[in-house]
């Protein structure tokens, strides 16, 4: 190797090349630590793109020669590492990569892709690939390489076989015979090859398009064909194990369609085809799908795979049993993506029906959003028995939880519903109180009306904020009956010496509710109130009159 002596300084070009390599190493490290949307990742990417740009200001290509422990640019050593670990030169060299060239028109995406290849854990993530295969498959537009393929196989035996064939080369006699036969042979009129029509090309195009789709469906069909054709128990059990692995694989790539299909076939088809003695062989599959580890895998998939089809995910979860409720509650606290959380909620809304008590354990979770989501799921299930668990959540420390609990309790229509909602009317949070009031309003029962009127006539009600009071009166107006009408007129008429302003606010709310009720009998009273010196009373009375007269 004709390279510069160790102490000789690098040329400017080599220094820039060295800079690129150091940049690649640094970026590789940062890419392993941070996700692509992280500012550190983005900065690292900016920095390496900049290093390439600087190099290409004066060069149109960066060609690096790879040796076991060093990398050379124009015969100058720009990287050296005698160690076996974390050695970039060795990383390339061990797979036979001898030269790599970056062209000046390389794009940012290509640089990022290239560095991401360098962080591949080939042993675990791509055991059938090496750096050369990946570069070959990726076929970068502006990165070329040269790899030595000679070290791959010893073909000496095959060379011998080929030499044997070559030795069998035809004799002069066979040539002569062929020549004489040719004199007698008929002259050929070759057929024109079959032309391809537009229709043929369309057929081929659509078939080729399908090559980019997952083939798990077809694979599953084959597995079951193999299963039904198996003639001995050992093979049958082996294929069932392959089915189990396939199912786990489908889950790991978010293909719940195929996973669901496998389970449907096992449940429906195998009933008809498989002898009773063999049916328990499928049990490990059901143990596997209900295991915490597979549910944890689902959590990871929900965060990483964007193209999950909700319908198939739901269909898959219908095969799970109640033991999956706790791990699903756990992943509800872990999953980051909105769609992922939505799917976990949908799953628990199905599996949770199998055991409300276990699902209600989610109410004890220390993450407020898990508690809130559990309440939401209980509401979706709609089993009134869950009110017993929800009652405690009315006094949860987090307002968002209490609000969800009130909303859910309101939807359950249990005998205790009104009791808990009435209790929530005195919650410290305005939002919770209003939610409770609305839930009571939605009940539309006599009892609910009574509870609401009691609240409106309670000693403390007058002191509430005007907006809140108005909301309550809006709710009571949902009952268009005499009792409510009389209550409102009574309230509008009510005068008191103390707390006049607060009382007038309450009267204004009654005027507002009478407007909603379209209560024409209240018109004289409203006209009178519209002349009040209190702004709220005056304006709400006028608004009600307006409603009643138009």
């Amino acid at each position: 190797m004709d390279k510069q002596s160790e102490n000789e300084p690098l040329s400017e070009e080599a220094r820039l090349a060295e800079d690129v390599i150091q940049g690649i190493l640094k970026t590789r490290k940062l890419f392993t630590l941070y996700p692509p949307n992280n500012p550190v990742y983005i900065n690292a990417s900016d920095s390496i793109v900049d290093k390439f740009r600087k190099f290409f200001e004066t060069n149109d290509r960066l060609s690096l020669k790879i040796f076991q422990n060093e990398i050379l640019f124009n015969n100058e050593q720009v990287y050296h590492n005698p160690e076996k670990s974390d050695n970039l030169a060795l990383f390339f060299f061990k797979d036979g990569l001898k030269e790599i060239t970056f062209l000046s028109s390389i794009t940012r995406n290509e640089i990022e892709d290239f560095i991401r290849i360098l962080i591949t854990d080939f042993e675990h993530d791509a055991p059938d690939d090496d750096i050369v295969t990946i570069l070959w498959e990726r076929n970068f537009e502006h990165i070329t390489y040269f790899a030595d393929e000679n070290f791959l196989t010893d073909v000496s035996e095959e060379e011998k076989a080929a030499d044997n064939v070559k030795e069998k080369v035809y004799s002069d006699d066979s040539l002569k015979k062929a020549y004489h036969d040719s004199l007698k042979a008929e002259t050929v009129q070759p057929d024109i090859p079959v032309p391809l029509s537009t229709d043929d090309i369309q057929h081929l195009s659509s078939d080729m398009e399908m090559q980019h789709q997952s083939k798990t469906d077809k694979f599953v069909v084959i597995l079951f064909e193999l299963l039904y054709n198996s003639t001995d128990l050992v093979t049958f059990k082996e294929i069932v194990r392959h089915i189990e692995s396939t199912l786990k694989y489908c889950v790991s790539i978010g293909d719940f369609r195929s996973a669901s299909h496998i389970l449907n076939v096992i449940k429906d088809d195998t009933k008809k085809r498989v002898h009773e003695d063999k049916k328990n062989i499928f049990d490990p599959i059901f143990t596997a799908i209900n295991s915490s580890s597979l549910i944890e895998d689902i959590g990871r998939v929900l965060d990483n795979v964007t193209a999950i089809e909700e319908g198939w995910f739901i269909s898959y979860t219908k095969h799970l049993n109640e033991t999956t409720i706790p791990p699903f509650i756990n992943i509800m606290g872990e999953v980051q993506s909105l769609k992922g959380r939505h799917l976990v909620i949908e799953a628990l809304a199905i599996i949770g029906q199998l055991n409300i008590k276990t699902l209600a354990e989610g109410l004890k979770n220390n993450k407020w959003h898990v508690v809130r989501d559990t309440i939401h799921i209980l509401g979706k299930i709609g089993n009134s028995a869950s009110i017993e668990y929800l009652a405690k959540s009315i006094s949860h420390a987090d307002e968002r939880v209490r609000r969800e609990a009130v909303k859910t309790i309101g939807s359950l229509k249990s005998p205790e519903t009104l009791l808990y909602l009435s209790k929530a009317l005195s919650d410290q949070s305005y939002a919770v109180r209003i939610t409770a009031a609305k839930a009571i309003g939605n009940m539309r029962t006599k009892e609910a009306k009574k509870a609401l009127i009691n609240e409106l006539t309670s000693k403390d009600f007058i002191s509430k904020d005007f907006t809140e009071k108005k909301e309550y009166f809006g709710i009571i107006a949902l009952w268009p009956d005499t009792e409510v009408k009389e209550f409102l007129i009574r309230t509008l008429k009510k005068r008191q010496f103390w707390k006049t302003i607060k009382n007038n606010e309450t009267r204004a709310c009654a005027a507002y509710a009478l407007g909603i009720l379209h209560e024409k009998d209240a018109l004289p009273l409203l006209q009178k109130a519209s002349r009040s010196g209190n702004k709220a009373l005056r304006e709400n009375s006028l608004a009600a009159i307006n409603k009643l007269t138009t």
Partner: protein
Amino acid sequence: MEDKEFEKIAKGLINSFALVIKTAQIHHINNVAVVNAIQKFLSFLNPILSSEAVTIELVGEFFHLNNSRVRYSMEYIFNFEFLIEEFKKKRLGAIIFEEIVQEEDIKTLVNTIISSSHAEMPFQVIHKALEKAPQIHVKELRKIRDDHTEFKKKQLIKRSYLNAAALTKDITNRVKAGEMVSLKRPKRTIGAIIDQLIEDESMLIGMTTIKDYDEYTHYHSVNVSILSMALGHKLGLSRKILANLGLAGLMHDIGKIQIPIDVLNKPTSFTDEEWQLMKQHPAHGALLILRIKEIDDSLLNLVIPTFEHHLNYDLTGYPKLRHKVKIDFLSSIIAIADQYDAMTSARVYSRVPLSPERALSTLLDKSGTQLDPYLLKVFINMIGIYPIGSLIVLNSNEMGLVFENNTNPDLINRPRILIISNSAGERLPGKNTAVDLTEKDENGNYKRSIIKTLDPNQYGINLAEYLL
């Protein structure tokens, strides 16, 4: 320009240029068909030239238009491939149009390209001739690696072929021993073969025509792999899918290791019982592959074709299916390659194989029932009417072996030939001479044409002497 708009114009431009060359290879440059093709090409070219220069460059297996890669589309695939071959043959790396060009300029360019066909250094001929057209320049094909001499290329292709055979044998032995098999080396080997297919398809297909090896199964698997990848390449499949196809080709018959050897090597017809055993090899193969590899995307692409390669297009065949599902595209490709190679190979039960032409004709009889009719058409076009390895007699009474097809479908009856005997039927001394049947004499007549074909298997004549 928007990406989609660019793609559309770029594809149209390259496709129309291919059509110009194709048409001009058959007709005189002033023929109306050529002139129309030129006008069409100019309708794509000149609007771009009104604002910038246009460079059509061949980089690897892709054309680049002004430094942007132009994607393949099925619609134009055959014209693209034809033009790629033309560029390679002429060592043309790029054609640069500096400013708006006229019909006459294109005629000069096209005439120059066509007339350089039989020159020893075609690029230099084109380069010199274009000095008359200052608005058009050409660049020589970029040497990505060392330029391969014919000899070196042959050595590399032979090595890849034998490498694949050695690997197939190794995989078979490992599977027999119940060991796990890493696909790292097979994938590298397949990658190298695909690169060679892209560079010189004919030579690799030529390797598949030598059928005299002792161990049929290994070489058959390699042949199926190569023929499948060649067909896939014709269709413009991506490298990754081609690699899957190649691996599946190597592995498709792995299930035969579970068939008793005396059945496999039986020189006479099978009994019903033996036939039932033979029919199990696709299922055995699928199971064996499932045992040697963890499940992932590439496993699916191995198992499916292995299981389906004897299933017919109409879903008859074997193994018998309970649920009839359309045959996978890769399986259909492998089925065609498998049948073609089996028919053209000597087997224990059929010492004299079919000639390539008869094999193609037999395949054609199965179109739409046993074999995918659309893929079969592409395959037949790929193999050509005088398949590589065909023994032919020329009007000069010389005999020769076809070693390279003409990529222009209109000149498919004019392949490149290796002359093996003179007009008196005597073996030529020393190195065999290669001739191109598109070569014309000074009167514009073809120098040589094929008049007869013979079955090379009857005389044991093949390309081994030339390729091995």
